[in-house]
């Protein structure tokens, strides 16, 4: 089904100089069906530099690192250079990447029905 990533994924994003970072993880608080492990496995498989660039097209030409943190049920993504020379110099909309995570959560994508 095509649903927002944020259906069961939480996010928080921020800046380090000119790099943006975003954490994406599977929420704990609506795990009625005991699906969390499957959801985490899906998220860790799904988020790669390539798929991240599809969700965030402005990163198309940027170096993207994805670090899995299975113990926290999610990933840490670092997008190098998204914010230019950093918050004070950046001309990007949202120069500190405060809303980047919430934007990504609103992107629609195909998520297997059994995880929903």
């Amino acid at each position, binding site marked *: 089904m095509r649903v927002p990533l944020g259906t069961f994924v939480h996010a*928080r994003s921020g800046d380090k*100089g*000119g790099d943006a*970072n975003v954490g994406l*993880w599977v929420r*704990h608080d609506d795990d009625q069906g005991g699906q969390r492990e499957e959801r985490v496995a899906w998220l860790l498989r799904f988020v790669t530099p390539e798929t991240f660039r599809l969700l965030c097209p402005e990163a198309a030409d940027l170096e993207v690192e994805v670090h899995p943190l299975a113990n926290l049920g999610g990933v840490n993504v670092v997008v190098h250079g998204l914010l230019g020379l*950093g918050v004070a*110099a950046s001309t990007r*909309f949202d120069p500190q990447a405060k809303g980047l995570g919430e934007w990504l959560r609103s992107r629609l994508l195909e998520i297997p029905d059994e995880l929903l």
Partner: protein
Amino acid sequence: MVEQRAPASAAKPIRVANCSGFYGDRLSAMREMLDGGSLDYVTGDYLAELTMLILGRDRLKDPALGYARTFLTQLEDCLVDALERRVRIVSNAGGLNPMGLAARIAEVARRLGLSARIAYVTGDDVVAHFPDALTANAYLGAAGIASALGQGADVVVTGRVTDASLLVGPAVATYGWQASQYDALAGAVVAGHVIECGAQACGGNFSGFADLPRSRPIGFPIAEVAEDGSSVITKHEGTGGAVTVDTVTAQLLYEIQGPTYLNPDVAVDLTSVRLTQDGPDRVRIHGVRGSEPPQRLKVSVNRLGGHRNSVEFVLTGLDVARKAAWVREQLEALLDPRPALVEWTLDRLPGPDAETEEAASCRLRLTVQDPSAEVVGRQVSSAAVELALASYPGLSLTAPPGRGAPFGVYEAGWVDRADVGEEVGFG
């Protein structure tokens, strides 16, 4: 006189609160944390990357400044009670001038008739190694803070230390950890990282906001740190928000850059961190492993990058793309000399037949940057204003254009530990 305090008993973890996640955070938070329940320490982070630049510019105007002034305001209100309740205060509000801030706090204490030991930690300023920088400060570890506390400090102010060190310092002072007790240090660094951004650990800036208790202001976090470095994150009773595995995960995954979190005292393996809900508004952090820290220290380097300005036009209704193209052309023709950077962005194209004027409108933003203040200042704002009756139909600006402002460029640098002479003094 130095008053010697009994160390906390091994069985009872120390309670370390945070009352600030940045320079400008809730002014009443120090008071809220002191009054909300029992604590051993109140810590506060006042230094973001951008803050060093702001303080650098303050110091250019007046060499006696360069510290976070709101911290002084907070102490004027709270110092009496903190001393009376034996809550010690540790913050990096010293910014570029910890010694100056300590002297001001000592004045406050004298004025209030208090006998207080006010310590400062210096040695982070390494601008001599980065000659063209406005500010260059090495991220220090916990040693200076721990030493100041060991000498009986009631208040410790530092310059650039890692945010986590504000908690690791008190933990080292309490438990006497050796430099090689990496797992304990790593546990404390994780706890310090979780509380350093204030309300963000308790449901502020949190994707799951819809399910939070939101009728009261979001509380600030407390870490109960045990002798083995494990901790419980919690908050004062009766405050808003929540402490759950998700609110703590949000802060743990924030501003990290990969699976190893480097600090001057330890390299933390983030893949080892375990979080467990341990009752309402209590999350236990355990299992954290650490290893030897890097030999070099990270440096926060800020340079003056130039000057910038921006103007925002509102465009409404039909032909938005052509309206935008025309005003661009008109305005750029008036810019002589042309700023080094001229960037235009249109936020969106309004939909057809909108039911409200606002929905029929969009914003065209011009951003300019240049080494010269003149080139981006009045030249740009005058050009925008003078087009008001001479350009596309319906032209308005979201705000009167300003004179522009300088901006900085941040970058990370590195120095050898041997080049950093950390020292503790008393104000």
